[in-house]
């Protein structure tokens, strides 16, 4: 799968509202428009599984595969107890659920800073960084997460 194009800082600064998805203590920031809904983990059907997913949630007559990722975006086969909410992400092309510790809307768009060139591994889904009270938030989007999930699932299947 080809890697999605990294947006420029100027493009990212046009995002009106960012949502903060906390994964394993790390804040990940996504465009709020890409969060279709928030669901309870109790609604995850563990019998319906996509490769490397933990189950699926039914919404709008379709199954949405649900994944659990660590703070540094490794696939977790077993969700930690802290994961209390499932964000269903939808950008029109990619649709899946992400089990999170917390999801909240940022009242103000934080200052976005470029990821330093020496920190950007080629497949990194991080498009920018944002200083928050709890550390640096990583700005990404559904497309980059979907590409990463595809790569992770491919890697897991190959071993």
């Amino acid at each position: 799968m080809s890697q999605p194009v990294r947006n420029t800082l100027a493009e990212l600064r046009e995002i009106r509202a960012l949502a903060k998805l906390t994964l394993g203590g790390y804040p990940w920031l996504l465009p709020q428009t890409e969060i279709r809904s928030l669901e309870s983990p109790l609604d995850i059907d563990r019998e319906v599984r996509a490769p490397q997913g933990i189950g699926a949630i039914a919404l709008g007559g379709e199954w949405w595969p649900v994944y659990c990722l660590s703070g540094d975006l490794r696939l977790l086969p077993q969700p930690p107890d802290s994961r209390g909410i499932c964000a269903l992400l939808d950008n029109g092309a990619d649709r899946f659920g992400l089990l999170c510790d917390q999801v909240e809307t940022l009242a103000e768009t934080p200052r976005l800073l470029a990821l330093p060139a020496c920190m950007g591994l080629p497949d990194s889904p991080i498009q920018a960084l944002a200083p928050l009270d709890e550390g640096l938030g990583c700005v990404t989007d559904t497309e980059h997460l979907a590409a990463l999930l595809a790569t992770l699932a491919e890697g897991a299947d190959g071993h």
Partner: protein
Amino acid sequence: MATENPMESTAWMLALDDRLRAAVGEHELIHLIEAPTLLDVPLSPHYCRRAILWNDRLLPAMDLAAWLGGREQPAQPARKLAGVVAYQPRMGAAEYGVLLLSDIPARTRVSDTQACKLPEQPTGWRDLAISCFLDAEIPVPILDLPFIFSGGLLATR
């Protein structure tokens, strides 16, 4: 007959850990932060997993000892200093980065007569350094900051 002194310049000697030494030019080290606040950046290379907010800029904190060792080093209480360095990329204005250090840098005078070969070990010095000089019989590589901070290390291993 008058003799000309060999060209001399000033450098900063940097302690990358308790064993590895390197140097940068006098004007390349511009600030020292004691007990820096290091901010985690997930999915970054093992030798540059943290960043520092400094003067409204986000600077990558480079652990060159970890890069030379080829693996992430455990949390190092000894690495108590952050040296802010400035470098000139090929195009554009000066840029900044941070080198994690284990001791206060020391100034030294270096002349052309001290030039020497890079140490053979660790082998990574070939990528990090532009040249080397002898200080008290010990080779001290001079760091190639534009290469290190512009992402050059990402392609080397």
